[in-house]
Every structure is written in structure tokens, then in C-alpha cells.
């Protein structure tokens, strides 16, 4: 240990010993980054009205409360449906938009790109009230389609960026070769390009799903009635009181996101 402390950290660096403060600081930061969400998991199994860590009496009371509540169950079904449909809509239109912007060399590409990533730049509150207005006019407010439409524009920028980055590092000559051998453009794209950027496409799809599933502010305005969303109800519950049911829902949501992350990693490994 002492020997390690006196060794230089890298070829050009001071010793580990004199960088000890950095290691301690970084450890604290990493714990603070991960611990808060992880602590919620054991807390959700507490029997108490006040969330404790570690729980004195373990129980699944709050899970029963969640699964037994028609209101929460309804609020769980909608975002799953919305997220799935958003993924199905946003991924193809985002991928073809990325391909279009990548291959066509027209002067207004920059403008189109900026327009398409706008939903990321514009404060989400404005997107929400704008969408609210649009859906009142279109008479689709509080329906599943309104959620899907609004979440699609939030997901498109991510698809565009992730797929666009993949296209940039992809050698277009491969597709050109297929086309020079007589394949029509769409066929060359589907059989040559798409399989090679599939990791980016899958990542885009997962991100689209999560964007929709996680989204709160837009859902707050345009979901309701028969189509409430989990996040909307959670947000309203958080504003009022600290309901331990939220801890069990949070745990389930952490599991879902972790699952998505593992899926993305698996597809990522397949590529390399």
C-alpha cells in the first residue's frame, strides 16, 4: 500500500499519495451519484408509513398497495402502450430522416437539422403547452394518440443524433457498391446499410421508449381522463405528500430502465 502511494500515477503525474484527495473526492461523488436511487429499493420493502433505511419490519405492503390499486394500474398501462407506439413511430421516421439528411447534399440541411432537434432545445414546458393547444384544435386531447404524437417529437432528436452518428462513421461506399451492381437505393439501404447501423437503430428505439415512458411535463398537460400516465400521477403525488407507494413504483421503474440498459449493452457487444 505504502509503495503504491509513492508511485507516480501516470508517466507524467504526481504520485498516487499526493493525489489521494482526488481519489477520496471521486469516491464520494460516485457514491452520491448512485446511492440515492439504490437506497429507495430496500426502503420500498418497509412496513412503516415513514420510509426507513434499513427497514425495521420488511413487508411488501406498498407493492400490494400499488398492484391492488385500479388507479395506479390504469396509469401503468397507458405509458407502456404510449412508449411502445412512440418507439414504433419515432424510430423509423427518425432513421429515414437521419439517412436523408446524411445523404442529400442540399443547402438547407442545417436548417432542417436544427428544426428537428428543436424539441430538445425548447424548454419542455413550452412544448407541453404548445402540444396542448395543438391537440385541443385537433380534438385528440387526453387520448393515447396525443401522447404518442407529442412523445414522438421528443424522441426524434435522439434517434437523429444516435443514428446520424452511426451513419457518419459508416462507409457509404458499401451501399454505393450495391447500387452500382444494380440494387435500387431502398434495397441497398435495407440490406447493406441498415444491418451495419443496427446497433444505433436499436439504441434509438430503446431511447425512444424511455423518453416516452419517463416524460412528465407533456403528460401532465395532455394525458388524463382514461389515459393517465404513471409519471403524471407520481408527480402529482410527490407534490402533495411522500407516499411510500411511490417507492415501490420507483423500484419497478429502476428495474425497467436497468433492463433496457442491459439490453442495449448486449446489442452493443454483438457489434464489436
Amino acid at each position, binding site marked *: 500500500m505504502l509503495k503504491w502511494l509513492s508511485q507516480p500515477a501516470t508517466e507524467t503525474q504526481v504520485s498516487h499519495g499526493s493525489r489521494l484527495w482526488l481519489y477520496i473526492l471521486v469516491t464520494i461523488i460516485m457514491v452520491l451519484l448512485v446511492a440515492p436511487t439504490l437506497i429507495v429499493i430496500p426502503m420500498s420493502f418497509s412496513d412503516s408509513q415513514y420510509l426507513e433505511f434499513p427497514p425495521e419490519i420488511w413487508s411488501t405492503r406498498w407493492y400490494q398497495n400499488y398492484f391492488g390499486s385500479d388507479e395506479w394500474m390504469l396509469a401503468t398501462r397507458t405509458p407502456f402502450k404510449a412508449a411502445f407506439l412512440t418507439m414504433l413511430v419515432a424510430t423509423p421516421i427518425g432513421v429515414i430522416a437521419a439517412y436523408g439528411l446524411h445523404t442529400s447534399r442540399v443547402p438547407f440541411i442545417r436548417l432542417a437539422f436544427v428544426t428537428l432537434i428543436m*424539441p430538445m432545445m425548447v424548454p419542455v414546458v413550452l412544448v407541453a403547452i*404548445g402540444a396542448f393547444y395543438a391537440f385541443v384544435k385537433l380534438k385528440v386531447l387526453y387520448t393515447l394518440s396525443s401522447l404518442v404524437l407529442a412523445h414522438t417529437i421528443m424522441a426524434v432528436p435522439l434517434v437523429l443524433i444516435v443514428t446520424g452518428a452511426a451513419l457518419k462513421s459508416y462507409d457509404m461506399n458499401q451501399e454505393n457498391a450495391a447500387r452500382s451492381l444494380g440494387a435500387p437505393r431502398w434495397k441497398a439501404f435495407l440490406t447493406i446499410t441498415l444491418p451495419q447501423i443496427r446497433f444505433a437503430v436499436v439504441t434509438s428505439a430503446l431511447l425512444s421508449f424511455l423518453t416516452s415512458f419517463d416524460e412528465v411535463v407533456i403528460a401532465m398537460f395532455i394525458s388524463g381522463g382514461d389515459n393517465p400516465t404513471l409519471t403524471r400521477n407520481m408527480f402529482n403525488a410527490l407534490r402533495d405528500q411522500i407516499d411510500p407507494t411511490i417507492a415501490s413504483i420507483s423500484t419497478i421503474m429502476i428495474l425497467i430502465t436497468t433492463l433496457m440498459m442491459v439490453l442495449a449493452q448486449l446489442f452493443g457487444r454483438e457489434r464489436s
Partner: protein
Amino acid sequence: MTNNSLSTHGQKTRDGNNAKELRRDELLERLRLFGLSSPALIFVLFILVIPVGWLFFVSFIGADGTFSMENYERMIRSKAYGRIFRTTFEVSFLTTVLCILIGYPLAYFMSQLPRRLANICMITVLLPFWTSLLVRTYAWLVLLQKRGLVNDWAISLGLWEEPIKFVHNLNGTLIGMVHIMLPFLILPTYGAMKAIDKDYLKAASNLGASPVRSFWTVFFPLTTPGLFAGSLMVFVLCLGFFVTPAVLGGGKVILVSMKIVSNIELFVNWGAASALGVVLLVITMATLWIASRFLNLQNVVGGGH
């Protein structure tokens, strides 16, 4: 038909026409390819651009339904609105500074690790990045509340005697916002650090620079584009942030976005909300525009992923 004549003159025009035709075909092909982005563009146009344009229009409609500047006048006159804008800037600025102070050392540390270890550390950044915003906000609410874990442990350890109020005030807002924004700073900064050629540092130390000096004169300046991109991303996202400050601020810390929502939900005052929205949008876009003169925005938005 004249094109088919074998005269040299005809040959020339045919080639000329061919070239023209080819050019036209190519342009058409390019436009067709560009057209592939039209479904996405139509979505954004109808759900974002037109409605926001409408908000702009509504912001100039007064309470009596005629054109007026009253919504903007109120914003300038009212002390409350001034305070809200000041709070928004303060919170965004403080969050950005804290993210830099916390995120930079972590990114620096990770950039020096061997790949495998760096990937493990990266999980500590990506795990929160992928976890729902609401879940993380809720976690801080639970941990920081009066009878929460932080107060309980600190009191039992004797760090302080009375529970400290961490949530429903500025402290809680900042803690939650920094936690959520940190990955947006770390990812581009880390990217910039990884791209630095280590030979520069070796050269500096060969020329006699101390580690501290080579850090500040060689390493740090090379990381500023990434750091700047990340900071900008954090600042702009903070300006329009709603969920976390609304929950952890407990109504005590009012940001512009929250005032917009309450203007609509509570007071159904679209004019006032729209005017606030227009100002918020202009500030956000101006920040991005100024920044885009110094760096490639595509890198900024791409930096987070």
C-alpha cells in the same frame, strides 16, 4: 432528333444536354433524399413550430382580447416576475458551477483509468442518467426530508443536533438539479479528455513542467471545448427545468417554467403564460446562438450520448 445527328456540333449539344440532365437528375435525387426527412419535419412543424408560433401570437393579446403589450409590460413592472427571472438565472448558474466543480474531477479521474476500470466507473454516471428523473427526485425527497436518512444519520453521528431543512428550499433544489444534470457535463468533458494525445503531456514533462503546471497549461486548455459544451447543455436545460425544482423546491423556489405552468393551470391566463414562454424561449435560443458562434452545436447535443 437533332441530338442524334452525327455532326460535331450536334455531339456537343448532346453532351451539353446530357450534363444538364444529369445535373437535374442529381438535384432531383438530392431533393428526394431530403424528402425522407419530411415525415419527421411535418411532426415537428405541427406539434412544435406552429403551436409555439401561436403562443407568440397569444402573448400579444391582452385581457380584453385585443392586441396589446400588457403581458410584457406586467413582466417588466412586476417585482415578482423580476424575482422569478433572477431565481431562474441564479439556480441555473449555481447548478452549472457545481456540476463543473463536481463533474470535472470525476471525468478527469475516469480519463486516466485503464479502459476496463473506466467503463466500470462510467456505470456510476450512466446508471443515474438512465434512471427516471422522477425516481431520482423522489429519492432525494425521501433522503433529505426532516425525518429522512440524512438527518437521522447525521444526528445519530452527532454532526448536528436539530434536523436541517434540506428540501422544499433552495438547498434541495440545487442538490436534486446537480444530481440530474451531472451526466450532461461529465459525458462531453470525458469525451474531450479521452481525445487528448498523451504525448502532449509527456512532451510537457520532458520540457520540465511539473505535473500541476502541465495540467493547467496543456491538459486543461484542451478539455475546455468539451467542458464548455457540457456546461452550456446544463445551463440551458436548467433554464427550462420544471419537475425537480417543482418537487424539491416545494413552491419556495419559483422558476420561470413553474410560473408558466401555474399561470395556465391555476389562473388560466394564456396571455401571461405565453409572454413568459416567449421570453424564456428567446433567452434559451440566444444562449445557444451565442454559444454556437464558439463551438459546433452538433457536438453539444451529440455530446450527451
